[in-house]
C-alpha cells in the first residue's frame, strides 16, 4: 500500500535561515503521526510543506501519490483532499458558522447547497456545536471555534488531516474538548499529522511520534518507545523539560 505522505530529504530556508535541513519520513494511510519538538524546530514548517502552503527549497514531498511542489500539480485539487486546522482557527469572520462549513464544498466540490448544509449540520453535531450554527465566529469561545474549524476541514471529506498546534491558543479548560474531537477522528481511522505540545495526547492517540530539533528529524518511534526510553540525548533533554 502506498504511503499517504512521503517526504524525501526536504530542506527549507527562509532567506538565509535554514528551517528544515533534510527531513525524510512517511505517513501511512489511517496512521496518526504526532510531531513534537521545541519551538523553532521546524515542525510547523514541515506540516505546511505537506499541502504546499510553503514551497520546498529542495527535496520532494508526495501527498496522496501527487508531487506537491511540481509546477504541473493542481494544488487546489490536492488541497481539497487534505484538511488543515490552524493554531489560530482562521474561521471566516464575515460568515456564520454554517456558512464557514458550506463555502468550500459548494465552491470547490460543486455540492448542492442543501446537501452541503445537511453535511455541515451533521458535522457540527458531531463536534458538539450544532446549536451555534447561525452564530458569528466572534461569538464563540476558542474551543468552539477550533471545533468548528475541524468540522469545516472535514466538510470537504478529506483523506488526510493536518493539525498545526490546534490547542496552543486555547485557554486550558478548552483544550480537552478539542482533543476529544481529534481522538474520535483518529478512532474512525482518519490519517492525521498533528504538530502538538500535548504530550499526553501524543502518547495516547499517536501511532508514531516524530521528534524534530533544529530542522532535523532527530528520532521517531512508537509513543511508548520514544517517551519512555528515548535513544537520543536531545530527545531526553526536550522531554525532561516538557513532561
Amino acid at each position, binding site marked *: 500500500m502506498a504511503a499517504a505522505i512521503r517526504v524525501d530529504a526536504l530542506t527549507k530556508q527562509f532567506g538565509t535561515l535554514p528551517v528544515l535541513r533534510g527531513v525524510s519520513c512517511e505517513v501511512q494511510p489511517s496512521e496518526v503521526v504526532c510531531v513534537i519538538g521545541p519551538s523553532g524546530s521546524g515542525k510547523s514548517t514541515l506540516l505546511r510543506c505537506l*499541502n504546499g*502552503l510553503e*514551497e520546498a527549497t529542495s527535496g520532494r514531498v508526495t501527498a496522496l501519490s501527487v508531487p506537491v511542489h511540481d*509546477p504541473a500539480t493542481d494544488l*487546489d*485539487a*490536492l*488541497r*481539497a*483532499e*487534505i*484538511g*488543515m486546522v*490552524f493554531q*489560530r482557527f*482562521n*474561521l*471566516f*469572520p*464575515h*460568515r*456564520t458558522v454554517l456558512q464557514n462549513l458550506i*463555502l*468550500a464544498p459548494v*465552491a*470547490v466540490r460543486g455540492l448542492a447547497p442543501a446537501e452541503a448544509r445537511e453535511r455541515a449540520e451533521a458535522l457540527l453535531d458531531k463536534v458538539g456545536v450544532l446549536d451555534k450554527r447561525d452564530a*458569528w*465566529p*466572534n461569538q464563540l469561545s476558542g474551543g468552539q471555534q477550533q471545533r468548528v*474549524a475541524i468540522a*469545516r*476541514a472535514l466538510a*470537504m471529506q478529506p483523506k488526510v488531516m*493536518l493539525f498545526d498546534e490546534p490547542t496552543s491558543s486555547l485557554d486550558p479548560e478548552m483544550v480537552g474538548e478539542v482533543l476529544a474531537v481529534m481522538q474520535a477522528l483518529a478512532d474512525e481511522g482518519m490519517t492525521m499529522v498533528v504538530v502538538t505540545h500535548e504530550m499526553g495526547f501524543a502518547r495516547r492517540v499517536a501511532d508514531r511520534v516524530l521528534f524534530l530539533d533544529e530542522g532535523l528529524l532527530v528520532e521517531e518511534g512508537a509513543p511508548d518507545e520514544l517517551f519512555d526510553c528515548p535513544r537520543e540525548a536531545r530527545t531526553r533533554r526536550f522531554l525532561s523539560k516538557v513532561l
Partner: protein
Amino acid sequence: MEPEPILWFGWFRADIIAEYAPLFWQGLRMTIGVTVIGITFGALLGLLVGMARLANARHAPARHLTRFLLRWPATVYVSFFRGTPLFVQIMLMHFAVVPLLMNPADGLIVSGELARTLRQDYGALLSGVLALTLNAGAYISEVFRAGIQSIDRGQVEAARSLGLSYRRTMYHVVLPQAFRRMLPPLGNNAIALLKDSSLVSAVGLSELAYAARTVAGAYSRYWEPYLTIAMMYWILTLALAYAVRRLEHRYGRGDTR
C-alpha cells in the same frame, strides 16, 4: 429691458440664479452623473489595479511575467495619476490624448464626421469621465491594496487549504472582509471625486462649476453663483457621507476587529 433685481437679505441677487436656473439644474445632474460613473468605473479599475500590484506567481516564467506585465505597469500608472494634478490630467486628456485618438482629420481610432459628432456631443463628458475615472482608479487601487493587505494571512491560508483557488479565495474570503474596512476610505474617495469633478468645467462640460463660472462671467458677481453651488456640493457630500455610514452599518457585522 433688464428685469428688476430681486434681492434676498438685501444683498443676494436671487434673480441672477433664477435666470440661469436651467444651467444649474443641468449642472447638478451632470455633477451627479459624472461622480457616479467615476466612482463606479474607478472602483472597478482600482480593484483590478490593486490586485495587479499584489500579483505574484510561484514559478519562474510566470513570476517574471507578472512583474513586467502587471506589477510594474500598475505601479507606474498609480504613481503618475497620484503624482500629477487632476487639473493637468483633465487638460491633457481633453486637448491632447482624446484629439489624438478621435479627430475629424486624422484620429487614430475615430475620424471623419463621426469623430466630429462624438466630440461635439460627448467630447467634454468623455474626456472628463476618463480623467476622473483614471484618477479615482489610482487612488482607489491603493485603498484596495491596503484593504487586501490588512486581511490576516491566515484567512488566505485557511481558504487555500480548503482547495479554493486564488480567485475564489479573493472573491469569497478576502474581498468581502477587505470591502468593509475599505468602506470609510472609499467614501472619502467618493466625496473627493464629487468635489474634484468641478475641475472638469475647464474643458467645457456643463456641470455645477461651469454654471457658476458662466454667471460670474456674465455679471461679475461671485457671491451668488459660487455660494449657490457651494450649497449644492455641500448637500451632495452630506448625502454621500450618510449613505456610506449606512453601508458601513449594514456590512459591519461579524467583523472581529
